[in-house]
């Protein structure tokens, strides 16, 4: 087991979580909790793979995946914004719907053969940097590089630009935002759509780049839910989201690769000699999510920061309250 390779692959696998987590941050910052991430990712992965299979063009697959994720997210937007239903149940139902729909439409895709994938390449110069160059800039998928550019931009957008401030206002104090002339409903619809597109992108990143193919529900294996958990850990901040995503990605890889070598830290590797211990390794990312949530909520309590104040609450114009 080469630690460098684990980290390199971890960055790639973390990119999936990065897109999904930041998408959910956009949605939640506008005040809409969307638990449908897992379903939208599956829809995205399925749509990307089947489009690439039909047309031979992976970029078209990415585009279709983003549109499909965005469309599914609008079901949640309609139910929770316009019909003012409970966002938890609505999000769950969208997740079920997305999962079911992707299984139906993706029937037979797992045996469909190979497709042309998104390109992998190394960045000249940057890949020459010792260690960092090997981990981050050598033979990575283009989606990984897009991810590097993406999260600082999102951070800048949310914290430093006018539309970003509008977004936060809508999530923190919608009636004040409304009084300022910001269209709360349109803003929320818009950012739920952005969240859906990014979840779709995350799905496409899996099926066309990181672990190519369609394996029905196992394609995402709960990463959508992990992303929702990471948002809480990230305290709705894209920079922290990136840190969390890459750490998680590395952890997922480590869990896979640790069973390889016969010796581990100078001792006999128990995971090599008893492969059944692998089941305990499988638990680690999920257990770690819970631990991260504990740490995140403790820190939030200490620093007195919390979720966007209007998160989960429908906005009804003219009604008292937020």
């Amino acid at each position, binding site marked *: 087991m080469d630690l460098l390779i684990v980290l390199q692959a971890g960055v790639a696998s973390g990119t999936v979580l990065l897109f999904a987590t930041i998408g959910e941050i956009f949605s939640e910052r506008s005040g809409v909790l969307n*638990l449908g991430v897992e*379903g939208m990712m599956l829809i995205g992965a399925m749509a990307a793979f089947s489009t690439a299979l039909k047309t031979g063009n992976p970029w078209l697959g990415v585009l279709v995946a983003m549109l499909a994720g965005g469309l599914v997210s609008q*079901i949640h937007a*309609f*139910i929770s914004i316009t*019909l*003012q*239903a*409970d966002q*938890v*149940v*609505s999000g*769950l*139902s*969208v*997740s*079920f*719907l*997305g*999962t*079911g*729909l*992707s*299984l*139906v*439409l*993706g*029937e*037979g895709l797992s045996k469909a053969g190979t497709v042309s994938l998104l390109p992998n390449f190394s960045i000249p110069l940057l890949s020459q940097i010792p260690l960092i160059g090997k981990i981050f800039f050598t033979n990575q998928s283009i989606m990984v590089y897009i991810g590097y550019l993406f999260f600082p931009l999102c951070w800048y957008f949310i914290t430093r630009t006018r539309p970003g401030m509008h977004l936060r206002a809508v999530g923190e104090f919608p009636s004040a935002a409304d009084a300022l002339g910001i269209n709360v409903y349109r803003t929320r619809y818009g950012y739920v759509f952005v969240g859906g597109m990014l979840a779709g992108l995350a799905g496409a990143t899996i099926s066309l780049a990181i672990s190519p193919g369609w394996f*029905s529900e196992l394609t995402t*294996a*709960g990463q959508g*839910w*992990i992303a*929702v*958990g990471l948002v*809480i850990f990230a305290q709705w901040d894209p920079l922290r989201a990136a840190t969390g995503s890459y750490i998680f990605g590395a952890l997922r890889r480590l869990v896979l690769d640790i069973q390889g070598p016969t010796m581990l830290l100078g001792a006999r590797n128990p995971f090599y000699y*008893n492969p*059944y*211990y692998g*089941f*305990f390794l*499988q*638990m680690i990312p*999920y*257990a770690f*999510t*819970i631990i991260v*949530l*504990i740490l995140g*909520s*403790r820190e939030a*309590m200490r620093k007195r920061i919390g979720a966007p104040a209007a998160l989960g609450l429908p906005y009804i114009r003219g009604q008292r309250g937020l």
Partner: protein
Amino acid sequence: MSETTSSQTSQRKRFPYKIQIEPRLKEAPKWYPFALSLGAILLSLLIVAGVISLVGGNPWKTYQHIAKASFGSLGVFSDTMVKAIPLMLIGLACSLAFRMRLWNIGAEGQFYLGAFGASAVVLTPLLPETAPKWVYILYMAIAGMALGAIWGFIPGFLKAKFNVNEIISTLMMNYIAVAWNNYFIYAIWTEGGFQMSKMFPKVAWLPRLTDFASKFKPLAGLTTHLGLVFAVLAAVVIWLILYRSRWGYEIRLIGDNPRAAEYAGISIKRNVVWVMMLSGALAGLAGMSEITGVVHRLQGAISPGYGFTGIIVAWLAKLNPFAVILVAILFGALILAGREIQPSGIPKMVQGIILVSLIASDFFMRYKISIVRRAEEE
């Protein structure tokens, strides 16, 4: 001046009717929620029919097949009930937690742990094979419920102590539960390298209707098992707790208005832990009854998503324990018939669409929609 403008607009040709949406001030009539749920189901069936014909199937034939394969004869109806039993128990588990607005999405994992607990009694073995059947059933039920309760306790405790979001933590516990069971199936209790335990001895099987065929002929071949009695009893108990006890009053008050509950001196944290444990215990009992009543051995894939379907059952039943029993039968039919339907994702999609339209239909509980003549309002 203003009069002339208004008369001008009224002279312009406009559609004489418009849709008016206003908040419902009076409580809706009693039949209304049922009609809404029914409407939501019919709408979902229509949507599903659309999707099925889109992917090249015949929706009418599919529905006919579902109806025949699940209600067509006494035998298949009995099989439907077998599928419905875990859904009843999990639907009750979810109803209880949801009533407090506690989102236990982890019934799937609690189900797996319940199955594990029951299997541990047989396979460890904790009881001699000569022990009477009722002792076995009692021990297995207790073990299943205890393990399910532990699996519910963990997220409940984390929620109470650290304010950890229970949706995520219960979901993560699902994945951990599956891996936990797999370890025992593959490594400890494997039978000759197969990914399943040995068959349980007959003494550890829940009695089934067919066991009484020697006394009453028509029961032959019917697989409905004692779990049904568990489920109905559980429904009564949950109803009594929720609507006839002080604890149930606390649960409902927290669900409706947590702040008021806090001011009334009700400990939300303690209730979170207890409700999660009872909810987990019910889901664990579902796992126990499935493993001892149907599968008779511990193996992987013992649940076609019962834990998630149970959420929809609870919601469709409007969290009413007795309605859960009836709704569970419908979904049991869907799961039973769904095994043979192609593409295999259809039952899952149907469930998703039903839940979506169900939640959307709640809008009509809160708002009155009427079509009024434009002239009337002027």
